[in-house]
């Protein structure tokens, strides 16, 4: 496992301070989450099911509104400016784009059209867009094969590739990735993270990614936050987190003897709750 050369800078690009999110006026989901995403870094957001990762990302990209959720407290700023009140489109214009959990492809558009929607906000000409399209096809040859079929008819993994490719097409400064590895074959998971790393190193793209696959995430990220029931319970440089015994046991599935077989886990272990 190599360490990354191009590290994050000191400049904080995105800062979330102490936000609270409520769904449907009654369901309190985030109970004061704060995090910082440095420019040029890969920041991982980890945590179990229902911890609030997706909610955090949606709060940042202002997509909560249409799910009847709202940020009731706290502040989100991007490059020092408050962005909570912007529309998602304006945020994309500023360079923040989100890849949503659960794919969300445009079913009736072809794979290629889907990718092209990613370039919606771009103004740097057709040539540049086409070059990027080629790049995406290079990353995901499978998509090139299926470019003419409607996205609704592609397999789960293919849709995931479309979603990621679409985000890349917008050439953003920051990408929020929600569970990029879900449903992908193992070698593709590796590949996706390599793409992330590539973009990060070569283009300086900043990433905030929510992941369940802690193992891989911590391998590629610079810094990690661990979320439990709507609160940040632990954070630190990825390398440190990887060595933390709790993280090891609960998120990496390793005990002192190394990885256990899933067959051998005889009794249910309950996660130790740090805070709640």
């Amino acid at each position, binding site marked *: 496992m190599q360490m990354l050369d191009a590290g994050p800078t000191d400049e904080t690009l995105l800062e979330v301070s102490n936000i609270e999110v409520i769904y449907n006026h009654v369901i309190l989901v985030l109970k004061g989450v704060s995090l910082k995403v440095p420019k040029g870094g890969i920041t991982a957001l980890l945590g179990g099911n229902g911890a609030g990762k997706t909610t955090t990302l949606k709060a940042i990209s202002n997509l909560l*509104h249409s799910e009847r959720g709202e940020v009731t407290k706290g502040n989100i700023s991007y490059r020092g400016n408050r962005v909570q009140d912007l*529309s*998602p*489109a*304006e945020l994309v214009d500023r360079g923040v784009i989100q890849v*949503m959990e659960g794919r*969300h492809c445009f079913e009736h558009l072809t794979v290629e059209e889907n990718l092209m*929607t990613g370039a919606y906000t771009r103004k740097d000409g057709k040539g540049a867009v086409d070059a990027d399209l080629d790049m995406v096809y290079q990353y995901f040859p499978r998509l090139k094969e299926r470019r003419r079929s409607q996205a609704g008819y592609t397999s789960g993994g293919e849709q995931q590739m479309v979603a990621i490719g679409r985000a890349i097409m917008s050439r953003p400064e920051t990408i929020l990735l929600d569970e990029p590895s879900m449903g992908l074959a193992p070698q593709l998971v590796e590949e996706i993270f390599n793409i992330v790393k590539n973009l990060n190193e070569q283009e300086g793209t900043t990433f905030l990614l929510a992941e369940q696959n802690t193992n891989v995430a911590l391998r590629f990220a610079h810094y990690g936050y661990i979320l439990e029931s709507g609160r940040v319970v632990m954070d630190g440089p990825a390398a440190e987190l990887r060595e933390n015994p709790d993280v090891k046991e609960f998120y990496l599935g390793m005990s002192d003897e190394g990885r256990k077989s899933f067959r051998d886990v005889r009794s249910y272990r309950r996660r130790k709750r740090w805070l709640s």
Partner: protein
Amino acid sequence: MPTQLLFGAEVFLNGLMAGVLYALVALGFVLIYKASGIFNYAQGVMALFAALTLVGIMDGQVPFSHLINAMLGTDVHHFGWHVNALISIILTMGVMIVLAYCVQQFVFRHLVGQEPIILFMATIGLAYFMEGFGDLMWGSDIKKLDVGLPQGGSFWIEENSQWLGFGNEEFYGFFLDQLDIVATGIAAILVIVLVLFSQYTKQGRAMRAVADDHQAALSVGISLNFIWVMVWSVAGFVALVAGIMWGAKSGVQFSLSLIALKALPVLMLGGFTSIPGAIVGGLIIGVGEKMFEFIVGPMVGGATENWFAYVLALLFLVFRPQGLFGEKIIERV
């Protein structure tokens, strides 16, 4: 019997023309559905509103004169000027854009991501609102709309098709309404422009993306506000055209909003998402209902058009559940 055939042909031709008029209304539906997945019931009322506004501007009516008079005890109704038709149309278009903006700002912006039926409901609410608003603004009397379109049967066609009867006394040439012919021309242009727009431009692609998934569209930076204001404006324009055509036939009045009901079977048959579908659907429905009334109508007592249009569309749907040209309904697990 050949006269019967000729009559049949005449009915057929007129069916085509009627179909085009239906299609004009259906087009507005298609646009909005395509861009947002909203089934816009208010399209008919929009046509009425557009036509009312057009007449109001042309005749220099004072808007809300009833209300003003009732509240202030004044007696105003006309400014006393007459505005040229073309300028009025442009001004009306401006009003329709403002309307589109308001609709987006006050209604649909708050309903992003809701289920289609909820959005549908909202358009019905909108229809109610605009119905009241239009009447309040321009009054509910019948107004004559004359933007200089030709009316009445075309003599030229009538005379030049008379020979088809080969001296038959009962046949005196085909009857085709000039207004319908104009409508056909306009509809053809509209359809071509709109197809090109939605299939080959960036905004067109964005429009279709929005219809598929509001959230995802937002997430890639498509501004729903912009797209929706745009399509509602275009739909407003289509409504204006439909309003002019239908208004010229029947005067501008409340019932104009009911033409929406004639457009629904067209829509269903052509597919909710297809612009050419609206035209083809219109033609099939127009011809179908006229021919049915011509052939079967006399046996069952007539007035079959209303329901037959729907039944015809239903028959097509059983074989193609998404309409002739609609996007296939994707069924996957």
